[in-house]
């Protein structure tokens, strides 16, 4: 093998993004001369307070919210998700049911697993083979026993969209609060929350080229709310704790940049993603796209490579300087392949070999060409080792030809 060109190629932007240099530059003064506490009366605080308000305005624009006071800063998407769901339960103590989906992010899923142990009833909406919900099932579950519905806007593994605006209207009509975890969608698709029935929305700074450790909860004016953290009166008493000012400023700049590049995301990035998909599927047999290929984030491609395992693929990609992620059990140290793949009924031998490529506006066509060039050899190399693989393809009836004793 020739020595590969090792300039790294980062295709794991659904995990995190590079903080935009403009955002970093804007943050720096807030670590040094602009150190004031925005709550303070003096001018040190006042200047910082104005900057925090300006950043709030940038988020308002990105989300298409009616008022800037509908934005509550949090320490990230996970805190926003937890705040939204726990607030709804606290505000509606007589309602003991929650509706989510089988494929939510762990920030929602694991919270609800815990709430189930505490006696709440959790309804998890099923998905079909390409990750779509059955809205009839959803409609039947909506009742005055439900405290909150929490459904992600776009799936982090496959990029598949859920019809959250429609689902919010249905919840609204039934008198149920609606929250969406939009961590993957914000900054990638145009949003107009002012014209939606969505009550609460979670977002995160570092998924859109902002800093880590900062996020926000959109809270529709008038939606009933109970804070998670109480203390000082920050965020109008809705999230106590001195503001993470530098991160807020950075996320504000990142939001402006995201709005500027929104079109590019849906043309340039989408074209690169489509090229990557076509290139890989043309060159690698027994590989398929998971999720709803016609209705997903423009930057996300999730491919299942049958009969090989994801972590092994990632290690070989990494050796070529390519960063991606996998739904295999091994990469997480958990027992099972991704809950998203299982919910879609992807067979184990394929689910373990799912690789997520998530792009950003910083990727180039040359990078995509390189990934397309090296991937087929990597898959072939691992298939050579696989007991499910014969000379030139899968062994006849792979599940029967190799049926190990499982422990």
């Amino acid at each position, binding site marked *: 093998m020739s020595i590969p060109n090792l300039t790294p190629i980062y295709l794991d932007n659904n995990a995190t993004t590079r903080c935009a240099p403009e955002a970093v530059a804007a943050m720096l003064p807030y670590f040094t001369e602009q150190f004031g506490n925005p709550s303070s009366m003096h001018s040190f605080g006042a200047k910082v307070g104005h900057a925090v308000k300006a950043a709030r305005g940038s988020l308002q624009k990105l989300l298409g919210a009616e008022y800037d006071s509908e934005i509550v800063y949090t320490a990230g998407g996970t805190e926003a998700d937890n705040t939204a769901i726990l607030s709804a339960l606290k505000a509606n103590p007589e309602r003991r049911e929650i509706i989510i989906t089988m494929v939510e992010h762990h920030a929602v899923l694991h919270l609800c697993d815990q709430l189930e142990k505490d006696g709440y009833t959790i309804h998890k909406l099923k998905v079909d083979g390409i990750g779509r919900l059955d809205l009839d099932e959803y409609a039947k579950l909506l009742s005055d026993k439900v405290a909150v519905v929490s459904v992600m806007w776009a799936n982090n593994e496959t990029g598949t969209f859920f019809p959250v605006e429609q689902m919010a209207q249905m919840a609204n009509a039934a008198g149920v609060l609606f929250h969406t975890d939009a961590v993957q969608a914000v900054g990638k698709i145009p949003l107009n929350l002012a014209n939606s029935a969505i009550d609460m929305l979670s977002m995160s700074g570092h998924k859109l080229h902002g800093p880590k450790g900062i996020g926000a909860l959109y809270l529709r004016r008038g939606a009933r709310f109970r804070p998670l953290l109480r203390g000082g009166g920050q965020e109008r008493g809705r999230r106590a704790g001195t503001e993470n000012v530098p991160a807020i400023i950075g996320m504000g700049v990142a939001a402006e940049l995201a709005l500027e590049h929104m079109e590019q995301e849906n043309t340039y990035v989408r074209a690169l993603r489509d090229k990557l998909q076509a290139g890989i599927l043309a060159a690698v047999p027994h590989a398929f796209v998971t999720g709803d290929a016609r209705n997903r984030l423009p930057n996300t491609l999730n491919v299942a490579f049958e009969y090989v*395992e994801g*972590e092994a693929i990632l290690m070989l990609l990494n050796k070529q300087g390519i960063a991606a992620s996998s739904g*295999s059990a091994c990469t997480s140290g958990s027992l099972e392949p991704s809950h998203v793949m299982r919910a879609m009924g992807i067979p184990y031998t394929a689910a*373990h070999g799912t690789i997520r490529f998530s792009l950003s506006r910083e990727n180039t066509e040359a990078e995509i060409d390189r990934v397309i060039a090296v991937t087929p050899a990597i898959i072939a190399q691992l298939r050579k080792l*696989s007991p499910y693989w014969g000379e030139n393809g899968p062994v006849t009836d792979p599940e029967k030809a190799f049926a*190990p*004793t*499982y*422990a």
Partner: protein
Amino acid sequence: MWDYSETVKEHFYNPRNAGALPEANAIGEVGSISCGDALRLMLKVDPANETILDASFQTFGCGSAIASSSALTEIIKGKTLEQALDVSNQDIADFLGGLPPEKMHCSVMGREALQSAIANYRGEVWSDDHEEGALICKCFAVDAVMIEDTIRANNLCSVEQVTNYTKAGGGCSSCHEGIEEILAKVLAERGEDFKAAPPPEKKVPGKMTTLERIRKIEQVIEKARPNLQRDHGDIELVDVDGKTIYVAMKGACSGCQMEAATLGGVQAQMIEALGELVKLVPVKPTVKLAPNTLA
């Protein structure tokens, strides 16, 4: 990314003995539920002296599963079946310069494939004697099934007991919530409620006679032994010199990557039992003198 040793990476990037072995006369096929990994081990055994002439593997699995398979084939080639059966999963991990706790089951899968292949050669049917569950204690690589079975078998009712029997929870203690959950579940089955133990009392160090103190030290060592023996290791008291307690780590414990953690666990129990700060120092096992053959 996992913190794999250079040897693991090397065996993953350049696996030895990969691929089918058409002349194989011993084949083992096993899988590990916990990773979805699966391995087919093929051996060519010389029927005359039961020596493994050649070995190869095919593996569906992660980097450490492939590396463990590769290591296993390297270790067993040239061995007799009897010698090969002595290869423990720790031997495979050691050969690779250690594996992360979450990945130890890859080495277990290697050992099971070997047992399965040898059973296949002898016309026997190999059945697995253990089941793997979710990893609870990451310090000592103990899974939920192991903890649950141990609680059941020994009627345990506290986290401390679980730690004493399985080592789980004896390190950083962040898995205590998980252990309490398993305890609560098993206790509920026997119709009892799980009650968190009161915080350990601060013991005022009482004066012990030298004899009492040595006996106490021996008790702690004896208590630790069954757990280590289960992993094919052992610990032996060698000497006590003031606050320094010399012990010998034996069998699989000797040179094990977890030796420091194991010693740390025993030392913590020793400090608690004696009510004073002591240090456990490993020394070479005592040399058993061969029967005097000199005339």
